[in-house]
């Protein structure tokens, strides 16, 4: 990826589609606390284990469930960050770099930044944005620019679909893997 764009201005890196995060919250918890508590909690624990979560909290109609899995974990960052309060950890950007937002994104395609740079929604300050939320886009259509080392890198859509959400703010830095656009490839027209 980086090799291809190293020295060519206006190089167009192909967007990387991150797979949805393994075992994020929101799976299979609907039926909770209706019949056998034990069974359901076992389900939750299994869920926790299968997904190597550090914590799982759910509140639903006055019901709150929190499951935590402290040390034996794959995704260290959550628990570890909790436990080192003295080391500040601001990020370059406000939104999470590594995944879609918490809402239901099943079937959605996330366009992420393949490089580190500055995100621009339009080709120049005076110009209109390439796309707006709700727009229908075609595969290969330019969605934005990420500027890096004075090179403007156009980022294209890798799918036909509708822009559901723009996830980065124009003129702000984005890191590798930063989610830029959420696209619904099968929009209900």
């Amino acid at each position: 990826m980086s090799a291809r764009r190293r020295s060519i201005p206006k190089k167009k890196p192909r967007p990387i589609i991150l797979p949805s995060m393994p075992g994020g919250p929101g799976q299979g918890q609907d039926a909770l606390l209706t019949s056998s508590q034990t069974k359901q909690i076992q389900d939750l624990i299994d869920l926790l284990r299968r997904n190597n979560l550090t914590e799982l909290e759910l509140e639903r109609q006055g019901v709150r469930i929190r499951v935590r899995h402290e040390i034996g974990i794959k995704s260290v960052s959550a628990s570890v960050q909790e436990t080192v309060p003295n080391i500040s950890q601001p990020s370059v950007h406000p939104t999470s770099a590594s995944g879609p937002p918490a809402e239901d994104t099943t079937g959605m395609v996330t366009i992420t930044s393949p490089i580190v740079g500055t995100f621009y929604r339009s080709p120049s300050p005076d110009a209109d944005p390439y796309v707006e939320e709700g727009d229908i886009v075609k595969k290969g259509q330019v969605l934005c620019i990420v500027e890096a080392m004075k090179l403007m890198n156009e980022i294209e859509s890798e799918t036909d679909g509708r822009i559901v959400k723009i996830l980065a703010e124009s003129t702000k830095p984005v890191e590798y893997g930063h989610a830029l656009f959420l696209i619904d490839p099968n929009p209900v027209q």
Partner: protein
Amino acid sequence: MFKKVLVANRGEIALRVIRACKELGIRTVAIHSEADAASLHVRAADEKVCVGPPDAALSYRNIPNVLSAAEVTGVDAIHPGYGFLSENAHFAEVCESIGVKFIGPTSENIAMMGDKAKAREVVSRRGLPVTPGSLGELRSEEDAMQAAQKIGFPVIIKATAGGGGRGMRVVNKAEDLGRAFQAAQAEAKSTFGNENVYLERYFLEPRHIEVQVMADHRGHVIHLGERDCSIQRRHQKLVEETPSPAIDEKLRREIGRVAVEAVKAVHYRNVGTVEFLLDKERNFFFMEVNTRIQVEHPITEMVTGIDLIKEQIRLAAGHPLSIRQQDVVLNGHSMECRINAEDPEKFTPSPGQITKYSAPGGFGVRVDSAMESGATVVPYYDSMIAKLITHGRDRQEAMARMRRALDEFVIEGIKTTIPLHRRIFNDPEFQKGHISTAFLEQLLAR
């Protein structure tokens, strides 16, 4: 002084640099690959930027992404650590061109010292002792034969762009030279993209001695004594110590003088290491200059009290050397064990999650590591996970501390080289200081 520094590395050396910056009141930016998002070095920094996927070529070595990270975070300087981009002359050059200070020597220094044959030639011309052998690269088999017959067998053929033992061939007799020359060229080309090779006398059981030097922008150069790095396995150092048991005050002054001369010859800047080979008759020969901070720099810090990373930063910011040669005092003895995530017998990597991590403490014990309980040793990078450093009034005390500290060190969930280090420190020959680069292979063969 710099206001914000980007640390273009990971693991313990990134944390080491971040600590030095904190102590100097400098803000820090960590970069990381997707595999290292939760690493301690990332959390220790003030800001962080993901620069790519786990593959280092696409993240830590990805010059455009690293420089973009420097740009978007607005840093004054980049510290490259060791490995990755630290000895990349092109990277150093581009940093300077975009107004970001590269904390290290000049790109010319790096380029010249990166050509081992050229470096030998320059140093030799100053009348300093280099290992007997060819000066400059060998143009042909005939060239090689001529050089070899001049110095006598055995000889070793090395790649001019080499390092880490690759592109090397030991030749014991004249009839083997031709084939070895071809093989070394081929390996050099495939490994380094550069087929040039040169040739030196091959020493049996030499010591690997290196001298720490520091140079400011006015051209003042001092040295901070030597390190004995003879305990190696396949050219990978496992234990280092300073002072060397083989070097007395007189030899130290002499080898230090040569090291200073050697780097002065190339107008060297910032911190560097001059490598020598010491034979059994205590003759020493220039080998090469490492244009980066070394993994084993802490042992020099322990005996001199000088923070080498802070010196690097100060020197890069244009400060003069903070100490004169006559004020450098070497106190006591220091040793370092590189703890690798490896099977201690088979040396196969042992990545995985560290279920329990508890480092030793107390007087004379230092641990440089970015590991902790729950951390994961990822399989993409170097297997070194901790440096255990001890200091004592003498070698005896430093060794006793190391044995004590190795016993206290708890790392569970993965295999480490700690048992091998124990074995080394319990070996009577090692304890007597009777070591050479052949020591470890001999120990393992027992």
